């Protein structure tokens, strides 16, 4: 205790001005005064050191109350105010604004909550409540004594944004940002934009054409004057913080110049054929190819890995667009916000052995996305669903739900949430197209929440899709006939079934996309244990990532369907644009200060800082990034020497507040 006081005296001497504190205790009508003896509280506050005035008043938040506050500053030279009334959320801002009006920094106000924390909750214990209020006010005065000015700074931002990923979420975000007047750099890993949505046949619940839905967006983005689109591009390095990032990215060569007329001559002479990635292996493509006829950009692309370099395409191209000498380019952009819309991957079901996906003889086991490709009007089968093994129309189609999701064995405990809707939609389309076929969905639980989805489920039931509640244990192949059977228990009737499966469709989960790990670490963004990028707060801030200025859009944050992705992306775009359109970030400099005489450059503050707001230079000098810091103070206990202290929440300041609240009787000596 003695030492504590010594320290307190020293720091008081260091501050320039003698603290002069005014204390006001609010009655709040009967709300406070009905339980707490406000006079006694005000009286006790008078004796506290540095208190020049202590009064009580009926309604401090009224005009008169606020004027009392301001007058005390003007007349008595008060430089710190303490108001014991309601919570900081309720009127803390009122009083802070009031003292700001008369020239005091708003952080020189200390709000003491004697209503929510005291009078309202201790109605039956008036004596205890009064005692508590006295302690709370003393703590408030102690805290006020050392309060420091916190300046509010305007940090200019770079009016430009980067969007990573040009799937539906990325396109939407890019479009929205551009419409708000923010120049956008949109980078896409693949050679075409549009993402998974372009692969689909119909979208649920209204069975609309996804190509028609997305093409205004793809065309709009490709032709938008404010959007720079780069395909085959990947982020390499990110530096800076919210408002001012420097992003370096790499653009792989396309080997075909923009003057390509998309005539397809090159493709027709190319001797190489490989399964098309975009078509999920349901058709073949050449080594120089365009993923699909409507692809944007419509320029052809050469796949260097599979190309044998026969030069036939160069020779045949009427506009000499093919150029094998193109090199990887690097580009650096300065942006104020980053929107990550890297999407998702379809889970690879070959990990689940009993389903034998991808094994010899199991050609007729496909995924929903592959089925989607077959049904699509642009498919090689001309929208017919044909068995990959023999090209016949399947009579019995079985869909298996929850492949790779809700499965602890493969480590994906979550429910993807879209597979049920997806499967029901496809089952219905199949049943409509082939009324004589038997379409069965084997499910654990049908999850169709939301408007119009239960109706979709109902319509599928009505049209004759068979629903069996049970998770198939395996897909069994008769080696003699090649016939597939799905072994499942109908749990509702407790009957083990062996269903004929001419075509078995696996509803595979949505999993984080490839390369998300390196991307996350380049962005300094943390990931959830499922592997997706982690949002800042699961409920209140689902679009912000762990780092300020980097926003998440769509399925990169977690499984989402198209409408959710679009909505999420719109939200991300609005947040990302907010400080860019305004031109600056207004930030209270409530940030930690580092005492360099104590700092040992261990870097632990950097380790624990979730928003990555601690910078370090070559000489191992650590500093706080004013913009990125979120004022959480998490670095304070991590510092072994106590060198880093959050302004107005430092160890000393908190101790002064804690002492009266603890009873103030020192038991142990330092």
């Amino acid at each position, binding site marked *: 205790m003695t030492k504590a006081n010594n320290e307190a005296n020293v720091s008081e001497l260091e501050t320039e001005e003698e603290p002069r504190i005014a204390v006001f205790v609010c009655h709040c009508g009967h709300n406070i005064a009905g339980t707490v003896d406000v006079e006694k509280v005000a009286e006790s506050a008078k004796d506290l050191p540095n208190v020049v005035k202590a009064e009580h008043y009926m309604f401090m938040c009224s005009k008169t109350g606020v004027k009392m506050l301001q007058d005390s500053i003007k007349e008595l030279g008060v430089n710190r105010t303490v108001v014991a009334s309601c919570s900081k959320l309720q009127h803390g801002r009122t009083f802070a604004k009031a003292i700001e009006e008369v020239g005091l920094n708003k952080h020189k106000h200390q709000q003491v909550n004697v209503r929510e924390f005291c009078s*309202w909750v201790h109605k039956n214990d008036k004596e205890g409540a009064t005692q508590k209020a006295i302690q709370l006010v003393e703590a408030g005065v102690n805290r006020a004594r050392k309060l420091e000015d916190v300046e509010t700074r305007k940090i200019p931002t770079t009016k430009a944004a980067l969007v990573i990923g040009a799937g539906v979420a990325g396109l939407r975000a890019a479009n929205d940002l551009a419409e708000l007047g923010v120049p956008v750099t949109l980078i896409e890993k693949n050679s075409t934009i549009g993402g998974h949505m372009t692969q689909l046949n119909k979208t649920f619940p209204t069975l609309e054409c996804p190509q028609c839905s997305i093409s205004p967006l793809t065309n709009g983005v490709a032709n938008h004057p404010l959007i720079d689109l780069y395909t085959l591009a990947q982020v390499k390095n990110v530096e800076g913080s919210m408002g001012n990032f420097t992003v370096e990215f790499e653009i792989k060569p396309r080997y075909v110049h923009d003057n390509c007329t998309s005539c397809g001559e090159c493709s027709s002479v190319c001797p190489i054929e490989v399964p098309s990635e975009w078509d999920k292996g349901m058709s073949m493509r050449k080594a120089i190819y365009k993923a699909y006829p409507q692809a944007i950009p419509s320029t052809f692309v050469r796949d260097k890995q599979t190309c044998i370099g026969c030069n036939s395409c160069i020779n045949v191209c009427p506009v000499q667009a093919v150029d094998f000498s193109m090199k990887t380019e690097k580009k650096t952009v300065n942006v104020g916000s980053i929107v990550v819309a890297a999407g998702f991957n379809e889970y690879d079901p070959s990990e689940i052995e009993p389903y034998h996906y991808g094994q010899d003889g199991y050609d007729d086991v496909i995924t929903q996305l592959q089925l989607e490709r077959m049904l699509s009007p642009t498919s090689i089968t001309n929208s017919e669903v044909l068995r990959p093994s023999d090209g016949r129309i399947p009579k019995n189609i079985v869909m298996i739900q929850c492949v790779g999701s809700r499965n602890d064995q493969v480590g994906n405990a979550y429910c993807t949430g879209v597979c049920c809707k997806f499967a029901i939609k496809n089952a219905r389309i199949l049943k409509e197209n082939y009324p004589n076929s038997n379409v069965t969905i084997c499910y654990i639980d049908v999850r169709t929440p939301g408007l119009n989805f239960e109706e979709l489920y109902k319509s599928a039931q009505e049209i004759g899709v068979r629903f069996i509640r049970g998770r198939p244990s395996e897909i069994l192949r008769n080696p003699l006939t090649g016939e597939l059977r799905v072994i499942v228990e109908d749990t509702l009737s407790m009957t083990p079934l062996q269903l004929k499966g001419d075509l078995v469709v696996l509803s595979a989960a949505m999993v984080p996309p490839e390369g998300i790990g390196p991307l996350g670490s380049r962005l300094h963004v943390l990931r959830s244990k499922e592997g997706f990028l982690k949002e800042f707060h699961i409920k209140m*801030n689902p679009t912000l990532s762990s780092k300020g200025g980097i926003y998440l859009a769509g399925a990169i944050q977690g499984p989402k369907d198209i409408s959710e992705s679009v909505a999420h992306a719109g939200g991300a775009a609005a947040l990302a644009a907010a400080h860019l359109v305004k031109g600056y970030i207004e930030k209270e400099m409530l940030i930690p200060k580092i005492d360099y005489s104590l700092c040992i450059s261990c870097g632990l503050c950097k380790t624990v800082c979730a*928003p990555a707001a601690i910078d370090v230079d070559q000489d191992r000098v650590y500093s706080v990034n004013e913009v990125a810091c979120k004022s959480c103070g*998490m670095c304070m206990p991590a510092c072994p020497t106590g060198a880093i202290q959050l302004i107005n929440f430092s*160890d000393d300041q*908190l101790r002064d507040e804690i002492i009266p*609240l603890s009873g103030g009787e020192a*038991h*142990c000596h330092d």
Partner: protein
Amino acid sequence: MTSSEVGDFCDPMDAEIKAKIKNLVVFMCNECGQGAANTAGVARMGYDAAIRIVRVQCSGQVGPIQIMDALNNGADAVGVVGCCLGACHFFNGNILSMHRIKLMKKLFKELGYSDQFVNQWTARAAEGETSVGDFEDMVDRLAVAIKNKGTIKDGC
């Protein structure tokens, strides 16, 4: 705390012990903690007057220094209240805090005290009853701890 220690709350002894608890310092984070306590206040949910709330930015800000400051200066016990795990508004402050407190608990046991003089709870801003539940739990546990092992003040 072992399960036997939590066992019987309704002992008449407890009422006397509870009456002796005067200062229970609770660090509440600026987000869910303060939010829940405010909600409890607005809903007029009563709790023990010994609860003294200190506003901090995040439960991750409360280090052993603050906890020991409180205990040294006469607090009967210290509670740290933050958001639910995975819902920290500053990402993972509550988890960092939790591990520090686990170590402190171990330290108290090594010194021969109950480990209930410091503990961590969670609250949800919209549910005032979570914070009230926390406060009641704090007092209950403390009462049992004091009954079995005496107060920490004895040792100071």
